[in-house]
């Protein structure tokens, strides 16, 4: 998988804000629409539309609420060790955008 799993650029992500050891969930104002490539994500609060560019990332995002940390959700979605950093960066971007939040 060479494509970045999330559309939003992660260049502005501040690493400190997102802690994958904490439990997270999808924000309540966010709705996820499955598509062939992954999913569309719409935040009714910010009116921002973004894209989850892989299906595993969609599974991760939806699994977050069932796990005590982000790593558990990555395991459930079957994200391999080699892809893990890339997914953590994508999730940090989603946290920054408010798509996912700590719980």
């Amino acid at each position, binding site marked *: 998988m060479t*494509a970045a799993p999330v*559309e939003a650029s992660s260049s502005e992500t501040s690493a400190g804000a997102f802690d994958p050891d904490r439990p997270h969930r999808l924000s309540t104002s966010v*709705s996820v*629409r*499955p*598509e*062939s*490539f992954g999913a*569309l994500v*719409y935040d*009714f609060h910010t*009116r921002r*539309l973004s*894209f989850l*560019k892989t299906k595993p990332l969609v599974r991760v995002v939806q699994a977050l609420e069932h796990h005590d940390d982000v790593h558990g959700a990555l395991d459930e979605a079957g994200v391999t060790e080699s892809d893990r950093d890339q997914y953590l960066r994508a999730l940090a971007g989603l946290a920054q955008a408010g798509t996912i939040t700590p719980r």
Partner: protein
Amino acid sequence: MKLVEHFTHGLTSPICLTWELTYACNLSCVHCLSSSGRRDPNELSTDEAKAVIDELQRMQVFYVNIGGGEPTVRSDFWELLDYAIAHDVGVKFSTNGVKLDKARAQQLAKTDYVDVQISLDGATAEVNDHVRGPGSYDTAIRAMENLYDAGFGQFKISVVVTRQNVDQLDDFKAIADRYGAQLRITRLRPSGRGADTWDELHPTQPQQKQLYDWLVARGEDVLTGDSFFHLSAYGQELPGLNLCGAGRVVCLIDPVGDVYACPFAIHDQFLAGNVRSEGGFRTVWQESELFGELRGPQSGGACTKCSHYDACQGGCMAAKFFTGLPLDGPDPECVLGNGETALAKLEMETVIPKPSLDHSHRTSPRADDGPVPLTLSVRRPDKACDSDPLAGEGRRLPAAVRVN
């Protein structure tokens, strides 16, 4: 596959759905894309419109762009607005501002998930009213003042770029800044009544470059609805999808429930179905033959040999269609001038398609507010009770047409 390639094959639901609620409009803008004016007697009822909203909620269409005609002249407009928002369908509606008095502005300011877009086609009354009609500038500005005073927040000012207003882009930006609004500029299409006025209104070739330069230099927080992707052939790709979204990520539901590939393509050739048919909007969107074709491989014709084809993708389907150019030919506003050449080569007998529908007002509003020029008879009728309208004028209608 790149994300944008997925888009060309279509999505399970549209991203950008325009829903025109009525063909009725208080204005008669000379470039109206839907030839609006008079209400169509077959327009969706309140219940039918709510059923469409239910369907959009099930399909997770997160927001719709509501327009018209002038949507706010529908008596159930505010009811439908609340219904959509309550069913997870956010609304952005386009209006000329005629109904946005102080009370409505305050009501809107209290409503979440609603966005308002005020149409303005000139930064001065002179330029605006030439296209949108007398008094329309003042109406729009008053609506902006009301939204601003009510603390609505960032509404949008929507400008169709024309030959007459392309020099006013900075002025539009200043108006937007004054009211805390965001500027949105879009491309004029030869659709609806725009077909009749396109020659006079569409930006000249040098103006297109001027527009492109402005977008590159100042367009960062200006919305464009991705409508200027044909200008990307000047060099730098403009922000956005840079592809024709018709039937792929975009479509139109018109006031009678007909589903077209794009708001600028109200013509039988681009009609995919009707929301009243069995299976409703979902079936039209997912299964119509027309949309299937639009999501398949497209022929770019001679344009595919052009080094700029990747940038402009052959331009706008509706702009080609309503100027009589083939769909695999160049855009009429091709920045290399190929469109102008193709237009010049059109044979005299080329039939330029007309929009399939015309709801234009049958009469034009009068240009001034002066007294109605009636000639009243100063002579007495022959008989005090004579009801003939020409009584006393010295001549009578033939007996055969007289109503007794």
